[in-house]
């Protein structure tokens, strides 16, 4: 005969309570807080840690055994990596180690600024486009137009208009990235707009700005965050390509793209000039991509379907 579990509920006569099954499932450890989140999502943890290290390198570059990255010393040019010059010197005698570390600042600044700006502007445009129907057609046509120009060509063309400077590079890449972000936001807004709770809010008489703020915006944040990381990674690579072609940051400012561009002719004889910034760039972009992937998996697994 089965055991009867004790229960505070009085059992009506004639009924039997089933035997409690043995608890075969492992107790689920609920991890809370930021640390818990990181342990649950190792990709975010790894990527975030790498990124944090690089940010620290960028901030504390002057204290990490570097010299003035723009000081030329033609008498000491093209020395291979040694105790004195950890990453060697380039064609003008500048210390590659210092240039790479200072270059971290530029690349991170470009990446993060573009991500931030493109997200903000794209968000604004997407929200307006999703909500204001008559503007939607016009805005989306303009965005389509911009999107049909391959982003690198667009960035090069914009840079050709102005002088090379970090600010102009940021502007040029941002303009190239905005259409995609606004498309994404618009898509989210369009799907959310049909949700019953939005209908209910409208029915209650909530004004449109309030609807956007209260209901739409919080739901766009997750995909926006993920998209922002991809924009950041893409911006860093585009900056490197722009500098490689000669249309990027000015040569007085060491950026990874610049260092690689100046060393490209010599990769056969002095590969370290291209290797070190390339390695740093790859690791940084990798870190950002890992953070993006991890966030995407954590925040909304269904995001995997969208790009």
């Amino acid at each position: 005969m089965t055991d009867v579990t004790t229960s505070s509920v009085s059992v009506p006569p004639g009924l039997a309570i089933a035997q409690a099954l043995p608890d075969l499932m492992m107790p689920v450890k609920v991890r809370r807080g930021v640390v818990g989140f990181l342990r649950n999502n190792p990709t975010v943890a790894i990527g975030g840690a790498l990124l944090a290290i690089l940010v620290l390198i960028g901030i504390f570059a002057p204290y990490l055994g570097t010299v003035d990255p723009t000081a030329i010393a033609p008498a000491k040019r093209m020395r291979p990596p040694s105790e004195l010059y950890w990453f060697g010197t380039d064609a003008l005698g500048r210390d590659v180690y210092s240039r790479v570390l200072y270059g971290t600042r530029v690349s991170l600044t470009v990446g993060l600024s573009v991500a931030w700006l493109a997200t903000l502007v794209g968000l604004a445009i997407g929200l307006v486009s999703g909500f204001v129907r008559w503007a939607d057609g016009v805005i989306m046509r303009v965005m389509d137009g911009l999107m049909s120009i391959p982003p690198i060509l667009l960035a090069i063309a914009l840079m050709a208009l102005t002088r090379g400077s970090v600010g102009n590079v940021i502007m040029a890449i941002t303009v190239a990235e905005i259409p995609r972000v606004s498309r994404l936001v618009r898509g989210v807004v369009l799907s959310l707009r049909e949700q019953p709770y939005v209908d209910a809010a409208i029915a209650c008489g909530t004004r449109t700005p309030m609807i956007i703020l209260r209901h739409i915006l919080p739901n766009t944040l997750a995909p926006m965050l993920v998209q922002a990381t991809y924009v950041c990674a893409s911006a860093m690579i585009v900056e490197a390509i722009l500098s490689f072609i000669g249309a990027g940051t000015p040569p007085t400012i060491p950026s990874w793209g610049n260092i690689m561009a100046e060393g490209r002719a010599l990769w056969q004889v002095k590969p370290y000039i291209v290797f070190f910034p390339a390695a740093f760039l790859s690791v940084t972009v990798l870190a950002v991509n890992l953070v993006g992937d991890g966030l995407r998996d954590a925040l909304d697994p269904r995001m995997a379907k969208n790009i």
Partner: protein
Amino acid sequence: MDRRTVLKGLAGAGSLAVMGGLPMPAISQGAAARTLRFVPQADLANFDPIWGTQYVVRNASAMVWDQLYGVDDKLQPQRQMVESEEVSSDGLTWTFKLRSGLKFHDGEPVLAKDCVASLTRWSNRDPMGIMLKGIQNELTAVDDKTFKWVLKQPYPKMKLALGKNNSPVAFIMPERIAKTDPFKQISEYIGSGPMKFARNEWVPGAKAVFEKFADYVPRQDKGSWLAGGKQMLVDRIEWVIIPDPATAAAALQNGEIDWWENPLPDLVPVLKKNRNIGVDIADPLGNIGSFRMNHTHPPFDNVKVRRAVLTALNQEDYMRALVGDDTSLWKPLPGFFTPNTPLYTEEGGDILKMRNIDAAKKLLAESGYANEPVSCIVAQDQTITKAQGDVTADLLKRIGMNVDFVATDWGTVGARRAQKTPHNQGGWEMFHTWHAGADCINPAVYPAIRANGDKAWFGWPNSPGVEKEVTAWFEAKSLDEEKAAVARLNKAACEDVIYAPTGFFLSYTAWRKNVSGIVKGPLPFFWGVSKTA
């Protein structure tokens, strides 16, 4: 339409496309040996030697067009298309008689009227030509093979003007082409030189092809630079444009190209190590690096400021940055004229030997420099200007000037340097360039040394001292008089700082060992060059 049918159709079309290309037989060994693949110093984007002054246009044009005279390796003009010339006793009438058998690539014979039209067009753009045009009475054809040039005053350097290798070169074109406006590009590339230009195979930015002209009649004398017989020993020359030096080096090592005009000095060691590659100095006349200051407004309108910069300038820094650590490739240049030429002088050039930052700072303070910004426009797409620009920015900072480094491209530099205004109105204070040594051998071919204010080259230096000696050189009647004039010119140029020479440097050229006949010279000479398989 049924989905399956469409998919099947697409698959079918795809496989057809793959099978469509029938493999052609590979070029035979013999044919390959008659084709020379050459990587030029820059892209051949346009092809009018009178309209465009780029070196690469001049180099290509030397194959397609011919000159009346040509300089030899002693820089003396010798007859080329001309069989004989006569100068009247008062020196005012020059009569030229053409060789027989000269033909253009379209089969037409070369006539005197073609020469007249070509020289008319040339004399609108070339400095010596402009001088000739200024003193010209008439330039006419006498008969099919003879033409005369009647002047108002003697011009002893006529043969040099017609035979020089400095751009724009006095090439002879058919009359109908030469009638094109000198400020517009020609659209037909027909000449009477030893190679024809394969127009239909030209891909600007990627490739230019030249084919041997079977009806070319070379002179019987031995070839030397632009003089003598131009014997073509290959049938076809392909100019392959490879902008990335690393790729060009790899292509030379792999045997995918035969001759690289201008290898990067830092890559030369790896090329030298390769058993199949020969490397040598390209041109004994070398190059002179320079930066020019804008004399029309502050701060460089003050000669003391200019002298301060020159005092601090260390030519070794510039030269190392440009050509690397090989000291056989560069020489300090305390003057403005090419070393190892008859008119070379170091007179007055001590200021370029000083290399004294402190003295410079003192001089700058004395000049009353009020921290005016110096906008320095530097072309990043030319290795020479880019390297120089970096060194200059550092130099100016160290003597305490307010530098505004403008990184841009050669095209923009070309446009901006023509503006006389200060930088905040689209102008400039300083830009970098360089000159082929062949262009700095005497005042006639050297627009950059002239100091006649508004009419001078960019920077518009104004130095009566220099101009006086230029006139003296033109009027000199012997080599000694020329040398004396040039020495005084050099001194005046150093005192007034016409521009800042950053040093004299040589460049290499590299070729596969199965190519022979390459000679040193101010441009790559393709006659006499042959290739074994």
